């Protein structure tokens, strides 16, 4: 996908020039950095002063060549932040609203209604009025509606932003499923790192309308610039682990993070898919320079400090311990322990600090 556009906004100018090719591309940045404007421009809902948008060799917009396809012909499915379900139509009518485009545009590939309903688990909602849906249900219906218009590209604008934390955790797996099942390229706007790390293959970091970094999420987010741009958001580590065994009496589950590295996380049943994702906040990891003894924490993992970034009394460390862990400490702790890059440390993590995604 090629994306070059310049849009003057009230306080700054959105000016992006980027080419990328990923299953899920996250657009990551603080609120008011022009993310929604960018999605609107891709969907054809907003005028672009100058630029070019191309998906799979198909030009949607080109100021030089005078091309500007209307939204109807762009083949772009859009799930806006608030869901924007049609309040006077039932869930069923909302979902099939875009199906007519398939006939006209030929569609990307055959997506069956039944399949979408199953994947998003919304079959039981079909005959309900949309005004009677919960926030999480409404978002799933909005995603289904967009998918069933058989788009060539799916735009998701902070689909989880309006949901509370508990609900977020339950909806995120649905989006992972959508990514894996429907093979529609997605552009996912968010200011939440957990979402970037668990969904995206590529991330574009935007600030004040400018692209400040891009790359594979783990790599791109490593730069101090990105790390310290996190507002109220908690910085979380997300790992894919495989189930080993669990012990109900002890309240623990053993998972493998990497060959030779195991973690204890809170008890859960053996999942259907042995590979799943867990997360731990960068603020919930303790760094020790010696192997601590007589300690309640279930995980003491040896590792090597790779990087230390300091800013405003905070320190962001990346520690390699089978995988890269992000650890946020005070700058004081770094100097007190004389931490520096390449030294051996132990990461101390309570079992209960891990959460299933």
């Amino acid at each position, binding site marked *: 996908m090629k994306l070059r556009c310049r849009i003057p906004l009230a306080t700054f100018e959105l000016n992006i020039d980027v080419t990328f090719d990923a299953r899920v591309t996250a657009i990551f940045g603080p609120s008011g950095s022009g993310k929604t404007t960018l999605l609107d421009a891709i969907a054809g809902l907003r005028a672009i002063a100058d630029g070019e948008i191309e998906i799979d060799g198909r030009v949607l917009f080109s100021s030089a060549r005078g091309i500007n396809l*209307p939204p*109807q012909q762009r083949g772009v499915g859009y799930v806006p932040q608030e869901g*924007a379900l049609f309040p006077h139509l039932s869930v069923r009518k909302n979902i099939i609203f*875009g199906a*007519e*485009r398939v006939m006209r545009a030929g569609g990307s590939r055959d997506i069956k209604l039944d399949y979408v309903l199953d994947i998003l688990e919304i079959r039981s909602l079909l005959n309900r*009025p949309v005004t009677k849906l919960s926030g999480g249900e409404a978002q799933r219906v909005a995603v289904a509606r*967009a998918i069933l218009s058989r788009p060539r590209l799916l735009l998701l604008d902070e689909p989880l932003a309006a949901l509370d934390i508990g609900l977020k955790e339950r909806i995120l797996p649905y989006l992972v499923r959508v990514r894996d099942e429907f093979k529609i390229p997605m552009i996912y706007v968010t200011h939440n790192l957990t979402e970037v790390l668990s969904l995206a293959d590529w991330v574009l970091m935007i600030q004040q309308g400018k692209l400040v970094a891009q790359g594979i999420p783990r790599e791109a987010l490593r730069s101090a610039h990105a790390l310290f741009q996190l507002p109220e958001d908690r910085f979380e580590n997300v790992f894919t682990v495989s189930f080993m065994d669990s012990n109900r009496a002890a309240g623990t589950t053993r998972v493998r993070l990497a060959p030779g590295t195991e973690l204890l996380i809170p008890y859960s049943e053996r999942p259907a898919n042995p590979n799943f994702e867990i997360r731990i906040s960068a603020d919930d990891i303790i760094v020790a320079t010696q192997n601590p003894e007589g300690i309640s924490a279930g995980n003491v993992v040896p590792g090597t400090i790779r990087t230390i970034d300091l800013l405003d009394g905070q320190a962001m460390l990346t520690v390699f311990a089978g995988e890269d862990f992000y650890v946020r400490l005070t700058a004081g702790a770094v100097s007190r322990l004389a931490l520096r890059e390449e030294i051996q440390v132990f990461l101390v993590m309570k079992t209960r600090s891990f959460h299933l995604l």
Partner: protein
Amino acid sequence: MIFSFETWQITLFSISVGLASTLLILPFGISLAWLFARKEWPLKSVLETIVLLPLVMPPVSTGLILLKIFGRRSPLGQWLYERGIEIVFNWKGVLIAMSVMSFPLLVRSVRTSFAEVNPRLEQIAATLGASPLRIFFVITMPLAYKGIVAGALLAFSRALGEFGATILLAGNIPGQTQTLSLAIYNFVQLGKDSEAYTLLGITVALAFLFVWCSEWLLRSGKRT
């Protein structure tokens, strides 16, 4: 109480021409209201002001303007006359006067209800492949439904109450252009109080019916 033929005739005439005027302005009013609510163009505010003018101008002045426009000595009146259409001093004059006078009320009410429809819904409908026409009829209109009904009822009530513009453009000809309002005035002038009170009763009953109807429609229009 048994109404005289004359009373029936006046009532029926008022209602049917009022209804016709409302139906006549509905498509124009809805289109214009949508344009006002959704589109921008140079000098838009000038057109908005012109449309609202009959609402604030003395109805008699509007009637005089209409008389100048449609009178046989004006180019338009002449042109219509040559084709056998005469507006002034017959029921068509009543229709025009009612339409022009109630148009601003309709446009205002519908415009507000269009403005209250979240444009995001229309945009998303467009990304789902819906043509502008389908968006209008499947998304915008149903969501603005209440305002359109309220606006139509308001316009109809205004049409029935029309007096000033009607008397100038169509005159006050019993059996031909005499509406309820004109007839009441006429009967009072002639000292025929009982006839005037009969018609007064009818207008009160009609007003009651409209208010009741609109309330009922709005309540039933509230979909869950």
